[in-house]
């Protein structure tokens, strides 16, 4: 009887040791991960400036035309409508003196301007509500070059006051 107990106990211990010292094993766990990118648009430089050095030259005569081009980059992952506006008139001004001011948008818009459009909100003018530009998003692109061109013309019947002429333009990207 005693021997039988010993044998069975040994068997039991052996079985337990067998479990305890079980062979190497492994347990996998898969983790699924998601992240979301929303539709958005933003300018690489949201406060760009056209400074004196950007112009083709200073105005130094009557009826003289000067131009400047500002290359802008729009980051967008959705088709965008660009709308120009100004907190003022968009006309280059120095005190009571002005220069005839007009604009063009070129670059990666579906219909770039072929000719300058006068500053103003009237029909065919640059700040008209109907004057918008489409930037068509292409999947995998996401960066679009947009050029804002400005043209300043001095009066043809007098010399404008010397000095710096300023104005501002806002290009709003909407979708």
């Amino acid at each position, binding site marked *: *009887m005693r021997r*039988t*107990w010993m044998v*069975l106990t040994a*068997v*039991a211990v052996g*079985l*337990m040791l067998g*479990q*305890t*010292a*079980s062979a*190497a*094993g*492994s*347990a*996998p*766990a*898969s*983790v*699924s*991960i*998601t*992240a*979301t*990118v*929303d*539709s*958005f*648009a*933003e300018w*690489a430089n949201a406060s760009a400036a056209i400074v004196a050095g950007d112009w083709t030259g200073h105005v130094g005569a009557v009826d003289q035309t000067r131009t400047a081009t500002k290359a802008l980059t729009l*980051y*967008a*992952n*959705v088709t965008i409508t660009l709308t120009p506006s100004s907190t003022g008139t968009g006309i280059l001004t120095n005190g009571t003196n002005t220069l005839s001011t007009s604009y063009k948008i070129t670059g990666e818009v579906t219909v770039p301007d072929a000719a300058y459009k006068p500053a103003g909100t009237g029909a065919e003018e640059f700040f008209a509500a109907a004057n918008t530009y489409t930037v068509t998003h292409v*999947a*995998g*692109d*996401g*960066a679009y070059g947009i050029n804002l061109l400005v043209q300043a013309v001095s009066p043809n019947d007098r010399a404008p006051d010397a000095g710096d002429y300023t104005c501002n333009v806002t290009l709003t990207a909407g979708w």
Partner: protein
Amino acid sequence: MRHDIVRMAVVVSGLISAAGGLALGGANWSGQPYTLAVPDHITGAGQARSGSLVMTLDHDTPCTITLSVTKAGDEVLASAGDTLATSYKLMGAALQNGGDGDWVDSSTFLTRNYSVPETGPSDGITIWVRAAASSGRANNAGTYSASVILTASW
């Protein structure tokens, strides 16, 4: 005598059963399947967003956690050919030295192994993921997916 043998057989059976119930010398991840959704969306170029998930490792033996993927590239958050820069961290008090102190890029993460020197019985292991959008363009809008496999070996 016959009665004693029956009684002994019951004792042995009980011991074996107890051994199996404790799952001696093993490990298991509980609470699967695991899904980690980065809570905040990316809304601009160059933005980074992160999220984490606590996984439970039940074990009664020291083990080592290694990383792998089902197919090459699964570790990178991707959507229709576009990708987000993806980084990971594995953290937890049960990990030797607490795990990663800083973000590990996705390819390096797959080469890592993490020692779990103690015997549990139940430890929380936190996986962190960071998704970073490109800085020079807008990534495509949409849901980006990735997957990694954590294997506890003993």
